[in-house]
């Protein structure tokens, strides 16, 4: 298992890249993390796996948009090996 990867028990593990920005990056203490999850996992499962590691994440769930490979997706979006999942807190540009 690569350094920094969070293990999720199950068969057929896949690895996704998690990007976090702004306050979520600070909470996770990393802008980028590799996450091992069970094949067939959905975005919501990945979130839960991250929240297990960092419980403070959960209060941000309703305000966080999640992009998979650059497109905003819902929590039931099914993940594939190598996907890039980005956690986007409320924006502040301009």
């Amino acid at each position, binding site marked *: 298992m690569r350094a920094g990867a969070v293990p999720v028990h199950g068969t057929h593990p896949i690895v996704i890249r998690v990007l976090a*920005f702004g306050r979520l990056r600070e909470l996770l203490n990393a802008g980028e993390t590799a996450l091992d999850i069970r094949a067939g996992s959905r975005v919501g499962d990945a979130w839960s796996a991250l929240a297990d590691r960092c419980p403070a994440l959960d209060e941000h769930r309703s305000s966080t948009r999640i992009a998979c490979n*650059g497109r905003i997706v819902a929590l039931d979006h099914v993940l594939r090996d190598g996907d890039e999942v980005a956690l*986007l*807190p*409320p*924006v*502040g*540009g*301009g």
Partner: protein
Amino acid sequence: MFAIVREPIEPRRLEEAIRAGDGGAVTFLGIVRGRAEDGRAVSGLSYEAFEPLATSEFAKIADEARERFGDVALTIVHRIGELGTGEISVAVVASAARRVAAFDACRYAIDELKRRAPIWKKERYADGSARWRENRENLL
């Protein structure tokens, strides 16, 4: 041009964003203020962006502006990193044959950027504290 940049935005370079033949150009510059909304003294801002999604969102916003307001040329540039007060954080240039389309497109672009572009801002205060600030216009 749609870009996230780390170096200072030079207003004089924005002139180049005006499309040849157009009759009106509207530029918006966002500038770091020395006061937060609650009146606290701000020493600077830190911006970060999800860069590929930010630039593709800028391009999408420009496409939408053209659908709404007609043939408008848009340039959107946002700076990230550490910015001091008085520095330019964002520039939007809209040029069009006629001024109304340029005004409408420029305003649409900055409004939408603030609402949905994946860019985040941390306000740093003179007392050493700092806080992530979200836009009132936020999508969520």
